[in-house]
């Protein structure tokens, strides 16, 4: 077919004309070929703009390994480019290479006003070269109209290394040493026969009475250990208290049920309850189904526990451990069936609900003190005394710190973690 026929035959000629017009419109708008390079107005000379807008590079660049870390981090700092005041710097770009001659790859950027960058992707023990560039640009619809950079010299090589100690965290090290030292000292003192006073904790004082109530009424006791797993200190404390509660229950031959929402908690709780029954000489009274798994789901667990409460109507309910939004659902149901309820948690958001719906509530640290109070074991008593020593140190620090800060002498920095 001849070219004339293709373009000017009846149907194809119309198509060809429309196609050519479409291409022309696209070219004029620059929407096909001009996406990366915006159409330049004839009156503008972008090369001259780029040359005139090229900023001077930042000065006094320093590159060093981040001290006191596990490696993998290099700090880059600089002083602002002299052109920052003229508004010719919009960003600083940080480039990195394994070789002084390059090629350099951009590893990060920072806005104007920030004069440091932490390269936390530097391989351990590998030497890196860096340069920092002042970056000036103009954008339209997200695309660069023009861009201009003033690059610094190359600095390096710098290797990231790992250190055993972070000197910035010396305050934490001292704090831990003081606290652990006090705890160890008081544990040894308690073991050597020194007696320590522990103030009354109302909720714990009532544990024995609450178990006795269930015995008198001929009903069971329910112990809810919260919904967190064994990697939560509240669950750990809860298991210790469960051991004591189960011992009281076994002594009175009263059934204790422990519905749980975590498999590991089930295993631990079973051990605690079984041991309690063995300790009082009633190993045969223990039934495997006393400690049972319901579900891991928070509200599924709450629904199941509510159902158990209303059907079995326990006389006493313990809710001790880590609780979340299910706390009030469970506590309110326990309240509605007339059970005596003792709760304990260190979750600040759930404490109000327990205070409102339960007869006794162990607030925060009382939960952890309860196990020492119940068992009177020298190890736990000494630990509690050591913690009180730590609190006394902090109280004194607060008083001194507030006075010093009020007179304009900074003191709080000592307690800040870096």
């Amino acid at each position, binding site marked *: 077919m001849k070219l004339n026929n293709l373009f000017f035959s009846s149907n194809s000629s119309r198509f060809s004309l429309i196609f050519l017009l479409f291409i022309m419109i696209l070219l004029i708008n620059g929407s096909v070929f001009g996406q990366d390079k915006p159409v330049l107005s004839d009156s503008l000379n972008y090369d001259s703009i780029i040359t005139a807008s090229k900023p001077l590079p930042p000065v006094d660049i320093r590159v060093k390994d981040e001290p006191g870390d596990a490696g993998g981090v290099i700090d880059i700092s600089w002083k602002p480019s002299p052109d920052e005041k003229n508004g010719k710097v919009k960003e600083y770009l940080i480039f990195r290479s394994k070789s002084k001659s390059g090629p350099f790859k951009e590893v990060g950027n920072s806005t104007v006003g920030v004069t440091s960058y932490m390269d936390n992707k530097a391989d351990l023990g590998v030497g890196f070269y860096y340069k920092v560039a002042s970056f000036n640009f103009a954008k339209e619809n997200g695309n660069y109209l023009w861009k201009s950079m003033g690059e610094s010299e190359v600095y390096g090589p710098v290797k990231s290394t790992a250190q055993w100690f972070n000197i910035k965290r010396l305050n934490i090290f001292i704090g831990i040493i003081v606290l652990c030292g006090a705890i160890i000292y008081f544990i040894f003192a308690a073991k050597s026969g020194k007696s320590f006073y522990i103030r009354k904790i109302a909720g714990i004082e009532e544990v024995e009475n609450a178990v006795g109530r269930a015995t008198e009424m001929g009903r069971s006791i329910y112990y809810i250990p919260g919904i967190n797993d064994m990697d939560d200190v509240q669950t750990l404390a809860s298991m210790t208290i469960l051991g004591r509660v189960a011992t009281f229950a076994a002594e009175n031959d009263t059934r204790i049920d422990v519905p749980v929402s975590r498999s590991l908690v089930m*295993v631990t709780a079973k051990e605690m309850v079984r041991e309690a029954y063995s300790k009082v000489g009633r190993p045969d009274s223990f039934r495997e189904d006393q400690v049972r798994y319901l579900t891991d789901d928070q509200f599924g667990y709450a629904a199941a526990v509510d159902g158990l409460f209303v059907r079995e109507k326990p006389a006493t309910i313990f809710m001790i451990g880590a609780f979340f939004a299910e706390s009030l659902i469970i506590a309110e149901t326990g309240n509605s069936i007339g059970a005596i309820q003792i709760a304990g948690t260190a979750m600040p958001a759930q404490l109000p609900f327990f205070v409102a719906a339960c007869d006794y509530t162990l607030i925060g640290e009382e939960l952890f003190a309860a196990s020492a109070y119940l068992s009177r074991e020298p190890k736990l008593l000494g630990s509690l005394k050591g913690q009180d020593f730590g609190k006394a140190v902090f109280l004194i620090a607060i008083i001194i710190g507030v006075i010093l800060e009020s007179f304009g002498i900074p003191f709080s920095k000592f307690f800040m973690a870096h």
Partner: protein
Amino acid sequence: MGFWGQFGVWLAALLTIGIISFLYKDNFLYKACEAIFVGISAGYWFIVYYWDNLYKKFYLQVTNHDLTSWERIIPWVGFILGVMMLSRLFEKIGWLSRWPLAFIVGATAGLYMMIYFVSNAMAQVASTIIPVFIGDWATIIANFFIVAGTFCGLVYFFFSKEHKGAFGLASRVGIWFLMITFGASFGYTVMSRMSLMIGRLDFLFGTWLGMIK
């Protein structure tokens, strides 16, 4: 909305009503909903744990040849500890299950000691050490309450000293601070729960019954 969409809405509505019916009293509908909820969630979490732990953290790790041999050995430690938990099923070697438990408890205590000391002790003390005589009146009063509340609250949690005299007074002020905080927290949380209830009612009367447009 297609048939299955409508089916889902009806099912969700009936289950919602079933759970809410517990407010009246324990009944068959609630028992059915409870059993469905517990059964499905237990099954769901079993599958989640299988894919998240056994598959992702164990199988994919030990079969990933891009990792170093050491990185491929580590997951086996967890796997062996997990298998040891199953020894409870056999009476003679049941004692083996105490080892992984001891590992978890010990590792947890060690790991969290630093975290809790930094966030619950040092950071709290640093935030409390603030000037109480500097700034305008509002700042001075606010700062005074922060310092006094923290101080008295901390006194309340002293267990090895009898709470009497000035110490007892500070302790009583401390518990007042705690109770006022609990009251505010209670009100705030109740309001957020109200929004949850409104969401459910919106579903029942809007999505299900179409009474709210």
